[in-house]
């Protein structure tokens, strides 16, 4: 167990290091940042002035080391546009994205687990077919189109929910649904196949033979075991949602990290862009790490696979 955790943590640290290089390289080495800041209409002299002002005349490696040292101390540089520290800019926006991601995940789980259980309890019946069809439709529906349809129906047609902004809780309903439904098919299929597998197990037969009620068997014996992989995948999906919230936050004008990323990319605010990449990736790595270790702790087979 300790060995397994140690290996995982080591891997996580290596991945974070690689990510820091990639996110820095993406915005600095792969392109000329001075040109990007100056815009297409700038003269050579302007670009040269920017290059000196921001220190782009130093070699990439030197800049990277400086940036990484700062990042390790919780300093991700200063935003070019807002003239504030990147950390404070991101921290200001992070809660909205976290709430959105959390709500989206809750929505996805509340939809996918019951549907998956029902589908598994009645395989090859209409319940199963409908939930499978729902999964198929969900997978093919573009997230942003789903969001736009939601606006058409609930904001324009019925007028129940606002089309943008988060002045109160109602502003979160549509974005969370739009972001969450995308994870639903995966989680539902996982619940269904997990339940189908578990329901075949000997201990379920034993539990039934003992005369336990059907609901006790399903919830206490089967679900507990079937839901394990769902939880670990849900953690990973949460990481995806943080990255995928760009589109949703832009549509609904939610002041979250995704919207910030889109703004910063459009304005070539490189320190913010690379910091967001780093933060999202680090959150993802930590989530997978936690779910891996949790899984190994709960299920010893994982450790030796």
């Amino acid at each position, binding site marked *: 167990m300790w060995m397994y955790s140690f290996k995982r943590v080591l*891997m996580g640290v*290596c*991945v*974070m290091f*690689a*990510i820091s290089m*990639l*996110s820095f390289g*993406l*915005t600095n080495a*792969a*392109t000329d940042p001075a040109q*990007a800041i100056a815009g297409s209409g700038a003269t050579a002299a302007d670009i040269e002035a920017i290059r000196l002002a921001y220190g782009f005349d130093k070699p990439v490696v030197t800049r990277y080391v400086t940036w990484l040292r700062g990042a390790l101390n919780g300093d991700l540089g200063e935003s070019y546009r807002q003239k504030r520290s990147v950390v404070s800019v991101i921290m200001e926006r992070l809660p909205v994205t976290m709430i959105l991601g959390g709500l989206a995940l809750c929505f996805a789980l509340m939809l996918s687990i019951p549907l998956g259980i029902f589908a598994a309890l009645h395989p090859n019946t209409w319940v199963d077919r409908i939930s499978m069809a729902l999964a*198929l*439709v969900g*997978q*093919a*529906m*573009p*997230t*942003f*189109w789903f969001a*736009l*349809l939601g*606006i*058409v129906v609930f904001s*324009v047609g019925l007028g129940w929910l606002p089309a943008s902004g988060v002045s109160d809780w109602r502003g979160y309903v549509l974005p969370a649904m739009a972001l969450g439904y995308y994870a639903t098919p995966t989680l539902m299929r996982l619940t269904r*196949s997990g339940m189908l597998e578990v329901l075949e197990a000997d201990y379920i037969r034993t539990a039934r033979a003992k005369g336990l009620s059907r609901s006790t068997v399903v919830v206490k014996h089967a679900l507990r075991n079937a839901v394990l992989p769902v939880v670990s995948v849900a953690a990973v999906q949460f*990481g*995806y949602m*943080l*990255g*995928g919230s*760009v*589109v949703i936050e*832009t*549509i609904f004008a939610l002041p979250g990290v995704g919207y910030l*990323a*889109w703004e910063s*990319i*459009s304005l*070539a605010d490189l320190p913010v*862009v690379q910091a*967001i*990449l780093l933060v*999202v*990736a680090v959150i*993802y*790595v930590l989530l*997978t790490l936690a779910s891996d270790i949790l899984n190994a702790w709960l299920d010893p087979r994982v450790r030796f696979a």
Partner: protein
Amino acid sequence: MHSLQIPMAPEASMAEAQSRWWLLLRRAAVVLRQWPWRRMSRNGGFMFGLVVLLSIAAIAALAPWIAPHDPLVQDIANRRVPPIWYQWFSEDSNASWAHVLGTDKLGRDYLSRLMHGARISLSIGFSAALISGIIGTVLGVCAGYFGGRVDALVSFIVTTRLALPVVLVALAIVALHGSSLPVLILVLGLLLWDRFAVVMRSVTRQVASLEYVTAARAIGCSTLRIILTEILPNVMNAFIVIVTIEMANAILFEAALSFLGLGVQPPSPSWGLMLAEAKEDIFFSPWMITIPGTALFVLVLAINLFGDGIRDLTAPKGRS
């Protein structure tokens, strides 16, 4: 046509039989003969996917000839014309057969734009899936075949790739390098190979432990030869299934990037871009949102059904 004749002539000369192309053709003939035509035609989802996909591909290929209008020509006198069914159900006299699906805010014919947009979606989806397929297969087959350190390295690369948020990275690259069709294809191709690597690794591991691979090694075949002639042909089924998944993914990502304004640039008729341009008309002309979205949805659904069908047809037992 050629491949169909091959089983008729089994006694080919040694030189021919040893040529790699010959082997490949014979394998193709075997696949065609053994292909479960019967089961295929009974698989409703697969047939639906196949027919819809072929129709969309045909429309895309023939778009310049069959589109009723030029997708880029603006007709300012006929802006925001509703689609034909508005004439039937809402008695809207603006709707006419001249523009079956209506026009957008610049008076461009929606049906023509939709047809030309199919070309963009399909070409991006297919090329990106192919590029990512090559990258992912190389990584996955190496990891699965060699195991050990190579496996650990590949798993590190895959984990790193998974930690990068696709939309953000693609947006950043496209914003910094300017967006054109080749850049989009390349960016998506370089980002979507993770599933290929993961699946190819596990399939290769299974195949590599089979007896004919051990036999090939025992005769003294080189590693490259084993991988090319023993492993690759046997992981092709999985490859094709993942190609469909990633193609659908790439199409959705292209639409999302174009929707955010950092994908295909105006005036190209990308479906995602059409949705973005229609966003401000959402209150008064909702059909502008529903039509390109439906097209996108149907295309992706068809690709998914097609891929699911191939998976079921090629691996009847191993459903998960």
